[in-house]
């Protein structure tokens, strides 16, 4: 488990490290943590005050750059660098847009921040807004999160009444306010350009890039889009300093991150850990180990290629580079552990169906491939009507879909299929040859 830390002996890469302290989720799960009173009692809005009254906007951007924070929504683009892409203020309205459309299967970290610690997000948006001279923050929250929406709206109302939002905050001359916008159940709106369209009252189809959002984003004005956790991480970077954040993690992945575990483990849930901790530490030491024999796991949300549940993969550090070396991606950090007795073809059929349902229909490879032919092929297999050659046809289709879609949705739908065929080809072949699954168990519901 320790090979990843060899070159940087002092970096914190395990939650067992005594120096490690939970920050993002410190107040999640505690009653009334969503109220302004509670937040103020726990150093609330001190980081924003520090940024607004003692730092220049460029200092804030540089601090975030120095911390090494990378986007927590899945793509992993360095957050500080993204912030520095905003053009010089030219009199146009500028926006900081927070992507709270968390809908990647396996991911549920943002939901608890929105529900239990919404002031943390408000404070993060203030800091990000100040850093980029954006006076309007937008939170796009998925429509199903009713509780999170209500809590966030009331947090913003309280913050406004107490003078933390509005004109001339902390006497700094900086004005800031937040718009909360609800989605209505569309996975694709988590894609940043589709999200902007959805916010503007258009259909949630992705837009062509360039122009990038920093040039022409919401309403054609300069916009930066960040995940909820990227923005809340900025609060702690300002509070504790970039060095503190960079003291955790590996060379290419700094800081602390929220990992989510679901599937067949004893204690599913969100666990905050330093980057570079291993899957083994997460699954065994914190999630209590698999609750039954496991054969595979998805490392970072359904669109990341799954990996076999073996020591070789479990010992991989959960960092951008560490997982890439094993042929997968960190994604959102949503780990799903798959039990041995679950038919993997059936599992993938569920996944394929999801991407088919969520395809927006804008481009042909996705509409015809992801949303039409791929589910038909999988349905055929699952019904026991598979024929020799079907597997090759699926692989062929996958190769022709990847890289041809308008946005990354088509690729994201194909990666897990490829990986499942790579590691569990025998299950596909067994099903095609026998018409029944190698693992026919269908009862999973607990009494």
């Amino acid at each position, binding site marked *: 488990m320790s090979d990843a830390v060899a070159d940087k002996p002092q970096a914190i890469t395990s939650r*067992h490290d005594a120096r490690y302290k*939970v920050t993002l*989720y*410190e107040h999640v*799960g505690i009653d009334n943590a969503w109220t302004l009173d509670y937040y103020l009692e726990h150093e609330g809005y001190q980081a924003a005050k520090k940024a607004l009254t003692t730092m220049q906007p460029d200092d804030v951007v540089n601090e975030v750059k120095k911390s090494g924070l990378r986007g927590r929504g899945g793509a992993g683009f360095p957050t500080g660098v993204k912030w520095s892409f905003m053009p010089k203020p030219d009199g146009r*309205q500028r926006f900081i847009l927070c992507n709270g459309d968390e*809908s990647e*299967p*396996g*991911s*549920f970290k*943002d939901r*608890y921040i929105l529900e239990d610690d919404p002031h943390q997000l408000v404070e993060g948006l203030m800091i990000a807004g100040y850093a980029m001279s954006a006076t*309007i923050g937008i939170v796009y929250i*998925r*429509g*199903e*999160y009713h*509780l999170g929406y209500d809590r966030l709206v009331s947090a913003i109302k309280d913050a406004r009444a107490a003078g933390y939002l509005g004109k001339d905050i902390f006497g700094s001359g900086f004005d800031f306010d937040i718009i909360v*916008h*609800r989605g*209505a*159940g*569309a*996975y694709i709106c988590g894609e940043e350009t589709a999200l902007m369209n*959805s916010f*503007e*009252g*258009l259909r949630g189809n992705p837009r062509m890039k360039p122009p990038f959002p920093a040039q022409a984003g919401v*309403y054609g004005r300069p916009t930066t889009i960040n995940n909820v956790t990227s923005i809340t991480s900025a609060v702690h970077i300002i509070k504790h300093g970039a060095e503190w954040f960079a003291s955790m993690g590996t060379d290419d992945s700094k800081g602390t991150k929220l990992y*989510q*575990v*679901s*599937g067949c483990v*004893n*204690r*599913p*849930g*969100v*666990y905050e850990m330093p980057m570079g901790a291993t899957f083994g530490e997460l699954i*065994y*030491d*914190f*999630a*209590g*180990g*698999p*609750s039954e024999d496991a054969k595979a796991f*998805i490392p970072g949300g359904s669109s990341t290629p799954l990996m076999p549940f073996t020591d070789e993969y479990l010992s991989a550090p959960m960092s951008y580079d560490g997982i890439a070396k094993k042929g997968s991606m960190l994604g959102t950090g949503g780990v*799903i552990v798959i039990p041995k007795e*679950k038919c993997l073809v059936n*599992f993938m059929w*569920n*996944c394929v169906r*999801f991407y088919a349902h969520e395809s927006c229909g804008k481009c042909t490879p996705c509409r015809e491939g992801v949303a039409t032919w791929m589910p038909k092929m999988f349905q055929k297999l699952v019904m026991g009507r598979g024929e020799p050659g079907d597997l090759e046809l699926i692989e062929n289709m996958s190769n022709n879909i990847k890289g041809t879609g308008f946005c990354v949705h088509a690729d994201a739908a194909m990666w897990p299929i490829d990986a499942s065929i790579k590691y569990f080809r025998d299950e596909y072949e067994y099903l095609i040859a026998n018409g029944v699954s190698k693992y026919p168990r*269908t*009862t*999973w*519901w607990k*009494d």
Partner: protein
Amino acid sequence: MTELPTIKPFFADKQDIVDEILGRYPEYGQRSAVMPLLWEVQRAERHVNEARIAEIATILDMHPTEVKGVMSFYSTYHEQPVGKYHLQVCATLSCSLAGADEMYDYLVDELGIVNGETDREGRFSLQKVECLGSCGTAPVLQVNHTYYECVTRSRCKHLLETMRADTLPEPWRERGGDNVGVEKAQPVKSPGAEGGNT
């Protein structure tokens, strides 16, 4: 849409709500209000019909087809009224591993309706939905706006019984990991020794 004049406009006596929603967005971005206005109608009427679509279009100076185009893109706006209790079963990966498919079958058997249908009395609607962001507390059943998490067979039965008696139980807050509070999420020493969620 010729029947428009006979239906009382939804927003006729709700100018304050319209003003509040429009006031959220900058004057050059009033079109953003289309989704909140749709939400407002649906919350009150459990669906959005053609007349309401036309009304929203007039408020925002859009064509009704544009409004309908936006509405039909999303899966949580309904063209037909849903029942008093709108049961939404998450059917995606983690929930399916926790028995969501069996829960759906159970509800079909119990209610006599399938995905997308509403029963004769208008009490129950059943819908299979995609990931609700409750994977750690799977399987999840969303009733109207409320998440019911870790829904076991006995809990599902209990839920149905209470809804048939026209009430809804308080949602039990099931949580795991750091989301129960950090101090409770300490590492376990021996792998696989502990059970349960909380």
